[in-house]
């Protein structure tokens, strides 16, 4: 009897956890997109007014930024410093692959960043600013859609997790 109750509790706990975990992804994506935008905004200032070299600019970006986005900036900088002759594009892509494993961003969001990284450090200031603006507007659009998805899916996944657990328990009790 008690064993059964324990099992039922465990099943519900497990499915609820899975549901919350799935909801977490939708919750984090808009936040990370927002953070990326503020990151790019800072980069724009560094490029446009500060005329800072990229590694230094990235170092400044990584300062005081926690979570996957901060790690990303840090990783790009480290890649650049670690290997002599590493191109910005290669460092960016390697770090981006790393970021993809730890963040809630979709393939589409990552492609925006990938395209932006391909132009970073390749041309003059005005051209880079143009690409940066493009990436920012794309990220903004992605954020809007991420918010919509969050509103739709977050509560659904939570509810489905708990209810699915209850259904399994009732079925097999």
């Amino acid at each position, binding site marked *: 009897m008690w064993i059964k109750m324990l099992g039922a509790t465990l099943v519900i706990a497990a499915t609820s956890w899975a549901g919350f975990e799935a909801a977490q992804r939708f919750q984090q994506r808009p936040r990370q997109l927002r953070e990326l935008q503020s990151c790019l905004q800072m980069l724009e200032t560094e490029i446009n007014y500060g005329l800072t070299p990229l590694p230094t600019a990235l170092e400044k970006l990584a300062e005081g930024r926690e979570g996957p986005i901060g790690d990303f900036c840090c990783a790009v900088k480290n890649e650049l410093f670690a290997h002599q002759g590493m191109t910005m594009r290669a460092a960016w892509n390697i770090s981006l692959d790393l970021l993809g494993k730890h963040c809630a961003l979709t393939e589409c969001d990552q492609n925006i960043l990938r395209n932006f990284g391909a132009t970073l450090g390749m041309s003059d200031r005005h051209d880079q600013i143009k690409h940066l603006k493009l990436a920012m507007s794309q990220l903004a659009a992605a954020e809007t859609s991420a918010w919509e998805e969050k509103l*739709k899916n977050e*509560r*659904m996944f939570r*509810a489905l997790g708990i*209810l699915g657990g*209850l*259904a399994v328990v*009732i079925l097999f009790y």
Partner: protein
Amino acid sequence: MSVDLIFKIAGIGILVSVIHTVLKQAGKEEQGQLVALAGVIIVLMMVIGLINQLFTTVRDVFRFF
């Protein structure tokens, strides 16, 4: 013949209706209908043995062969 089964079916009914509502609110009506159908089938599976019993009993009582 226990009353447990009735409670079980009631529980499934409530759950399926709630899941259906949740999915509908999230704009996934197809999945909601799928869940409702799954609920019906599951309950039917549970009841089908009893229905069989009922028909056999009726046949035995009235001696249909």
